[in-house]
Each structure stands twice: as structure tokens, then as C-alpha cells.
């Protein structure tokens, strides 16, 4: 299942931070997130609502609302995206990286035929493509996603939700980007359509060697579709590793709690994690999960853990593991 972690990263994210300014100070929706993605690899990003996973997805394409600030580094192949000019950013969006959103119903312009959407998307990057050629490309992309090309001239409202999501994906991949960020692509759809869409994304990843970032709160989807998983909590990645390893032997207490709260065939009692995520305007000084953690000890509320390698492939940000102490604390802080 795991495509060997090659050194050929298509995407390297380092210390990504996103802050929204509010009247009462900054709110750090994404705080110091780092990860890599290889070609043909799929990374699942899971966490509770409001943990910053969607913001992170949009930040990769810099589709943030005004008033948001981001810092850190997002490296796509050899290009640094943070601080890039609007012009280059526009080139990267769609051509290098595609974003598939949560709700397909409102994502297409209601006044525009599907074929025109394709023409627009293609000619935004290849202005010299003729309209008929662009239309033909669109038809091909639609056929690839299982939409009859005869319906290319229909309007968005004439399609069902699942079909629209296919169209959205087709629109995303028509320029053959190297990465797709899918933000809860199936939340609004029913189970059968969900399976179809996930299958489609998986096939694309294999056939086109796409990097896939799948943002979801559904652990089952991650287990089925992804190679690696990043667990986010309160704007941070708390655990990152191969899906199998993380799901069978979770390292972080939060991941453990999350997995306990999943229903499976042999569930007899449903567990949940007590409490609420912290206020991101005033996050706790130490570990952000400390107030809800069942394995909390004296260092937790005061020391902020770093993400550290726990096994060969998995990293976790928890003081139960020595490497998580910041450098100045490391000597003798924890016996």
C-alpha cells in the first residue's frame, strides 16, 4: 500500500502558519505545520472540525480570505509559493495544483454551461487554445470522470451532486496538475457516490502519478484511500505517519482517542474525547491537548511539544516521547 517514501517530493511544506486578525488579536488557525508529499502519494489530513485542516488546504493555494496572513514555506517541486507574485500564483493554481471543495452544489457558476467552464479553465492557462479544442479537452476530461460528453453543454443545475463533484474533479485535472487537494470531497454526497468519487481520485493518483491531499474528518476514508496520514489538532500536526502504523499503533493520545471514537463492527461501547478544542486566540502555553489528555503529566501544561520521530516512519508531538522536548528543555527535564 505504501509507495516507498522517495526523495522526490512534489510538495514540501515547512513551518506553515496562517493567522486571521480579529478585533481581539490574532487567531492561529494553522500553526507551524510541516510535511512532505511525493508524486503518486496520498496523504490524509484528519482532525475535528475547526482544527485548521481546511485552512491548511486553502493556504496551500493561498485562497485565504482577506485579513488572513500566512508565513512559512510551501515548496512545489522547485518553486517556492509563499510570497510569489499574483501572476505566478495564478499559473500554479489549476496548472500545478487543483483544489476540490466540499460542496459541489455551489461551486459551478449557475449561469455558465459546463463546457464554458472548461474553456475558461483551459484558456486561463493556455490562452491560445481554440475554443473548440478546449471544449474537446473538456469532453475528454468529463468522459474520463464518467460523465457522458453529450452533456457538456448542460448547465450546472441539470446535474446531481455526485455528477457535479465529478465535473469539479474533471475541471481540476484537465490541466494535469501534479497535486490535488481534496477538501472533504464527499461530505455532501451519499455513501455510494462517495465510494465512486474516492475510487476516481485513487485511480487518478495511480494513473497520473498525482499527489493527493485528502482532507477529511472520516477516518474510514483515510484508511481506505491514503498512504500516510497527518492528524491535526488545534492548528498543529500531532501525528504523522503511514496509515497502517498510525491506525494500528497510534502514538499520540489524541490519535488514540480519535480511533477509540470510531464505530466498527466489534464496537461495544463508543468512546469520546472529553472537553473542547482550545481557543486558538489564546492557546494553552504547553501542549494544546493537555487539558483533554488522559495521559497528562506535570510537564504537559508548561512545555510545548515538537513533532518528533517516534519510529522509523511515524512522528508525534507528545512529551511521552523524549524528542518532543524543545532543545533547551531536553537535558534532564524528563526522567
Amino acid at each position, binding site marked *: 500500500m505504501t509507495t516507498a517514501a522517495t526523495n522526490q517530493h512534489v510538495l514540501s511544506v515547512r513551518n506553515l502558519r496562517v493567522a486571521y486578525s480579529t478585533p481581539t488579536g490574532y487567531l492561529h488557525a494553522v*500553526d507551524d505545520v510541516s510535511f512532505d508529499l511525493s508524486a503518486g502519494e496520498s496523504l490524509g489530513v484528519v482532525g475535528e472540525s475547526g482544527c485548521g485542516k481546511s485552512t491548511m488546504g486553502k493556504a496551500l493555494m493561498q485562497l485565504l480570505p482577506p485579513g488572513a496572513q500566512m508565513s512559512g514555506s510551501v515548496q512545489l517541486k522547485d518553486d517556492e509559493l509563499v510570497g510569489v507574485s499574483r501572476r505566478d500564483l495564478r499559473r500554479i493554481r489549476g496548472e500545478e495544483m487543483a483544489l476540490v471543495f466540499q460542496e459541489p452544489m455551489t461551486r459551478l457558476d449557475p449561469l455558465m454551461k459546463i463546457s464554458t467552464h472548461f474553456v475558461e479553465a483551459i484558456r486561463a492557462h493556455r490562452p491560445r487554445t481554440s475554443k473548440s479544442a478546449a471544449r474537446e479537452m473538456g469532453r475528454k476530461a468529463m468522459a474520463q470522470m464518467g460523465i457522458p460528453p453529450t452533456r457538456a453543454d448542460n448547465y450546472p443545475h441539470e446535474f446531481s451532486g455526485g455528477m457535479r463533484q465529478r465535473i469539479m474533479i474533471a475541471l481540476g485535472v484537465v490541466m494535469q496538475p501534479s497535486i490535488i487537494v481534496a477538501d472533504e470531497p464527499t461530505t455532501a454526497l451519499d455513501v455510494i457516490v462517495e465510494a465512486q468519487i474516492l475510487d476516481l481520485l485513487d485511480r487518478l493518483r495511480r494513473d497520473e502519478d498525482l499527489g493527493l491531499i485528502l482532507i477529511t474528518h472520516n477516518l474510514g476514508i483515510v484508511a481506505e484511500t491514503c498512504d500516510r496520514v497527518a492528524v491535526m489538532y488545534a492548528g498543529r500536526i500531532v501525528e504523522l505517519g503511514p496509515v497502517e502504523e498510525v491506525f494500528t499503533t497510534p502514538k499520540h493520545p489524541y490519535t488514540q482517542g480519535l480511533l477509540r471514537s470510531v464505530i466498527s463492527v466489534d464496537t461495544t461501547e463508543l468512546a469520546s474525547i472529553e*472537553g473542547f478544542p482550545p481557543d486558538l486566540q489564546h492557546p494553552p502555553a504547553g501542549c494544546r491537548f493537555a487539558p483533554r489528555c488522559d495521559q*497528562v503529566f506535570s510537564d504537559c501544561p508548561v512545555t510545548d511539544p515538537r513533532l518528533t520521530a517516534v519510529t522509523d516512519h511515524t512522528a508525534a508531538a507528545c512529551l511521552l516521547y523524549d524528542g518532543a522536548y524543545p532543545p533547551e528543555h531536553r537535558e534532564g527535564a524528563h526522567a
Partner: protein
Amino acid sequence: MATDTNTSAPLAEPPAQTDPSSSPLTRLRKRLEHALRPWRRANPGARYLVIAGVLITLMFLVMAVFADTVAPFGQDQYCSDEFFNPENGACIGAGPDEQIPNRAAPSRQYPFGTTDTRFDVLSRVILGARIAFAVVAFSTALAMLIGVPLGLFSGYIGGRFDKVMVLVMDSIYAFPSLLLALIIAFALGLRLEQLGIDAPFVPAAVAVGTVYIPQYFRVIRNHTLSVKEEPFVEAARSLGASRTTIVFRYIFFNVVSSIPVLFTLNAADAVLTLAGLGFLGYGIRFPTAEWGLDVNLGLADSVAGFWWTAFWPGVAITLLVTGLSLMGEGLNDIVNPLLRVKGYRGKVKLSARESLKLAGDRDPDAMEAAPHRAGTGEASR
């Protein structure tokens, strides 16, 4: 944590979560903060507009309430106070010198000038505020008393009753409202005359009120339609609450929030409609001071070069309507956050919840906020 300067010193215990039930005082403060949050978040420019609107409206309200004290003369007074009999509006024994000069230009004694009927323009402008507020209050009360319950029941009951009501209201709505008001004022005036009832304010007030019934009906009905699907209404129904109880206890308090904005915008519109009726001679009858009527009376003066008689009443109308509209727009901005939060390029400040909302979930059906025709001003063209 370089970014987090206001976090207090490390705590020995796990930091307490923001618990909403900590103490009643905190809760009250929180609630107040929550209520004021949209206001604090509105950008300064928008806030000034709202403040200006409230100030202007308040100024007119004070003027209306204390009109008799503030106004130097009575509305139909054409001589100095000692000769004037407010009972019948006559000036007994006043010689030509004691009379107010006719068509006097603005001066210190008559700041806004006088009319050809020797009335003080300033006094009539001040007294006109009283009529404006009185008629607006009466007519909106009428419109609400009919429109709101009809909307509630129509939305709640649905079916054929709802269909018929919507059709009837739509046809009233589709009609040019000033024309409608004009016909009602005309017909009702005739009827009252026929029956020998002397009620000079009634036709205009009823006419202005009727015009706004469909607006309240629409807004309340549409809101009711969405609220009636809420679980708590379902629960009340399953517990056997009667229809009237459900409508007035459960639904009413949930749809009432849409009234203030509509009220303010309609009030602005109603001032214009009343003035329009007055200008055409079907509003409040002479010699009562009413701005629209006074503009009409000043028409001949204006053309003859005595600009002040028609000028000031019009300024008063414009100011009051502007004030009410500014207030309505401001309230709308505050009540309807859809337009405020996700600004395009402006420096919008976001609250924690909202920014996360932006990042993650989306708010349902933005088109719900599409403006209804309230306050489009067609009433008065």
C-alpha cells in the same frame, strides 16, 4: 510562541477551558460582548453612517415631541402671539403691523422665511415632524398588525390558504405603491365624507399603511416557512400544542428579529409616501403643517422667486428619510452578517468562530440574504 504575546505566564494546572457556565456575571458580559460584536466589527466608516442616522432621527424625534415648545409660531398662526387664538386659528384685532409679513425672506426673526399665507416656515417645518412621525407610527402599526399575523399563519398553515394569500399580496405588491395609496386615500376620503365622518388623518394614514402590508407579510411568511421546520416546533407539535400557541409562542419570537430592519426601511419609505400624497393634495389637509403639502403650497412661490417656502420642507423630508435609511442600512449590516464577514478585498476583521467557519464549513444559502424590495423607494416616484 512568538505570535502569542498575551498568553499569561505558564500555569501549574491544566489551563481551564473557556467554560460558558463559569459565573452569571461573566455570562452576562459574554452575552453583551456577543451582542455588540457585530457593532465593534463594523468598519468605522459604516459605524459613522449608523451613528449619523440615529442622531438625525433622534433630532427629528425630539423636534416632534417638543414641537409646540420649539416652534416659534403655531402652524396656522399669521400674527404675533397676543392676538392669536389657537382655538380657531384666527387673529382677532391684529392690525397689518402685528401680522407676520407675507413672503418675507429668511431673516433673524423668521430664519426660514414666511409663506404667502403669512405662516412662519420654520414653525411649519418643526410641526411637520410631528405629523410625519404620527402618520408613520400609525401606518406601520397598521401594516404590522395585519401583515405579521397573516404572514405567520399563511407560512405556518401553508397549502391553499397560503397560495391564495401570496397571490393577493403579490398583486398588491405589484401595483405602484404611490398610485395605490393615492386611490385608497381618495376613495376612503370620499367614503368618510359620505358618511359624514370628519377624520382628516385617517385616509392618508390608512393609505400609507396598506401599501406596506405585503412587505411584512412576505418577510414574515418566508421566515416562518424556514422556522417551522425547526426541531423545536416539531417537538411542540408532538407535545400537542395548539396551532395558535405554536405560531405565537414558538414561531413569532423567532421571526420577530426580521422586523426591525424592515420597520426602519419602511418608515423611511412611508415618510416619502406621505409627503408624496401631501404634495398631490391627498395627504393631510391644509392648514395642518405637513412637509409634502408645504412643498406643494410653495410651488407658486418657488417659481416666482421666493425659493424658501418650498425649499425647507423638502430639506426636512430628505434629512429625516436619510436618517432613517442610514439607520436601516446599519441595522441591516449588523443583523445580516453575510455581507459583512467575508469581504473581498477590504480589511475585514474576523472573529474566531467566523474565521474558522470561513476556513472550513460554509454558511448555507447566501442567496437568502438577497434584498427584498423593502426600501427600494419605488413608493414615491
